[in-house]
């Protein structure tokens, strides 16, 4: 299964992610 998020955000939105990394529910995905 897969979850896909598509959203609008200001240009300075930053993801705190690396491709291929494991993530758990509740951990930070991104912020401004």
């Amino acid at each position, binding site marked *: *299964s897969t979850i*896909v998020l*598509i959203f609008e955000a*200001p240009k300075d*939105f930053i993801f705190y*992610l690396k491709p291929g990394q494991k993530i758990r529910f509740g951990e930070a995905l991104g912020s401004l």
Partner: protein
Amino acid sequence: LHTAPVRGVLRLRPLHFLVAAGAGYAGYRQYEKYKEQQVEKLGQESPPKIASDWEVSLYKSVPTRLLSRAWGRLNSVELPNWLRKPVLSLYIWTFGVNMKEAAVEDLHHYRNLSEFFRRKLKPQARPICGIHSMISPSDGKILSFGQVKNCEVEQVKGITYSLESFLGPHANTENADVKPASCPDSFQKQLVTQENNELYHCVIYLAPGDYHCFHSPTDWTVSHRRHFPGSLMSVNPGVARWIKELFCHNERVVLSGCWKHGFFSLTAVGAQNVGSIRIYFDQDLRTNSPRYSKGSYNDFSFVTNNNKEGIPMRKGEHLGEFNLG
């Protein structure tokens, strides 16, 4: 072979064929690996191998929905108490499930694999980040993330799918927060409601051993649901690298609405064996049902006369779950 009796040759033929085919395939794999290593040595990335149209058609012709439903039925059968522990232990061992996080650790509590699959977690197992505005809605592996460019979204690095095929055309919602864009030709521009904003995406893959419920990633309001009945091909990263537009072929539920910065959507994409998607506040939703045909979609608006805003969701709130079958 020339001197062997004809009967002997005929008898050995299947074995010869298997050995030759196996050796040929192993040789081919080694050659492909060697080529990839050579490309990597040169400091280049090997181009992704995308399935041809006939390969995709062949895969899509497999009755994955029927098989998934059969698998779901099988796993909904109540197991006798003595069989629960060995069956579930095999699943735990195969997919590396961490049972210490489960709300109920006693395997006898789960009547079947379906019930185990939608197990809940202990409240303290997943602390919710309070600092950042967006959190991961589920456990999983990040396949891709970044800005949406030219109406194309990355499913894995280097392989894209059409944003419009994935979300479908704009819903005719009078009360929706999506304003008409200045450039009506661009689907992407129509989604962005505020100047100086961009469209972003993030893809999270849930492996079989992962916790399969999902939560709200931020504070937002769900105004619309669109259900796309579709195929149920595997979505593991290997297949996502192989089949272009995989997420547009598969059964999925798109929840859309708005958050403080404008448009927001969360899509749950079904997969082989995991064809059923449940949204807790949407009792009418029926996924992986034989009454729906592939290629269509079913809309439902949460914006009504009584509820002009839609369904408000808080960051971390329970949103839905994937189910076997």
